[in-house]
């Protein structure tokens, strides 16, 4: 009886993991198509490329990590106003990266602030791959 219960608990745990909110797949596919359109040699989004890009500065005073910290599982703080920012990684904050309008709104604003232009589909996809790869 005991091993059976354990197995059920393990199954429930696995199921709850698989039902975690995710980046809307249609949005990821459209980013992928756009990335391929811009560069036919494009392979796949890369979490490690996304991490490097997240922590790097791109010609302004700020990087993504300036407000979100180098650990997106932790809370951040707005560089100007000091307002707390909830964690960016879905593993720490399941509401994140689930709504395309919100994702796009923040990419528009923050890419302008951090790199002075809109982000490319590859840059967006890499950062999303990085953020969703993080585990608690």
């Amino acid at each position, binding site marked *: 009886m005991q091993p059976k219960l354990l197995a059920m608990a393990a199954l429930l745990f696995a199921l709850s993991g698989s039902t975690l909110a995710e980046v809307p797949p249609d949005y990821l596919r459209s980013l992928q198509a756009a990335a391929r359109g811009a560069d036919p040699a494009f392979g796949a989004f890369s979490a490690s490329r996304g991490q490097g890009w997240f922590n790097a500065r791109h010609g302004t005073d700020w990087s993504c990590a300036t407000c979100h910290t180098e650990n997106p599982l932790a809370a951040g703080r*707005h560089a*100007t*106003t*000091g*307002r707390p*920012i909830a964690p960016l990684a879905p593993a720490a904050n399941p509401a994140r990266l689930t709504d395309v*309008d919100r994702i796009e*709104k923040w990419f*528009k*604003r*923050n890419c*302008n*602030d951090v790199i002075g232009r809109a982000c490319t589909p590859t840059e967006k996809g890499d950062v999303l791959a990085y953020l969703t790869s993080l585990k608690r």
Partner: protein
Amino acid sequence: MLDERKRKAFDAIVWTSSLLFAAVLPLAASADSQRYTNENPSYRAECGSCHVAYPPALLGADAWRTIMNGLDRHFGTDASIGDARRAGLTAYLVASAGTRKGSDAPRITEARWFRKEHGEIAAATWHSRAVKSAANCEACHSQAAAGDFSERSVRVPLEAAR
């Protein structure tokens, strides 16, 4: 005759005290007016994610219009939002705007009342790590997010006070 004098003295006391009371009342009312309500969830969500959702009454209607027309360059950051949402929020802010004199500049910290109220705060406090910016009401106004800016809830952080 004596009674007449007594009555006059009594009248004088009643009049003086009611005048004094009338003079004190507005003070009590102004303390209460430092509490605001922000009932608009869209305003709290959109504007309150980067800074405390400033009470709309702290700026005049024209100042809000100017701010909402320049969200892509909003105090050094891009704070743009979709047109429909922007129109809705502008209408809310204009309808809830304040009417205080000297609130015309599209920046709360430039208003005459703001400078007067914060005159005793040292420059070092404003620039301390705990405060960072005058935009950070919550650094000292512990209940700012709930719209309470009363003196009672002010806590200047120790680090900043030093």
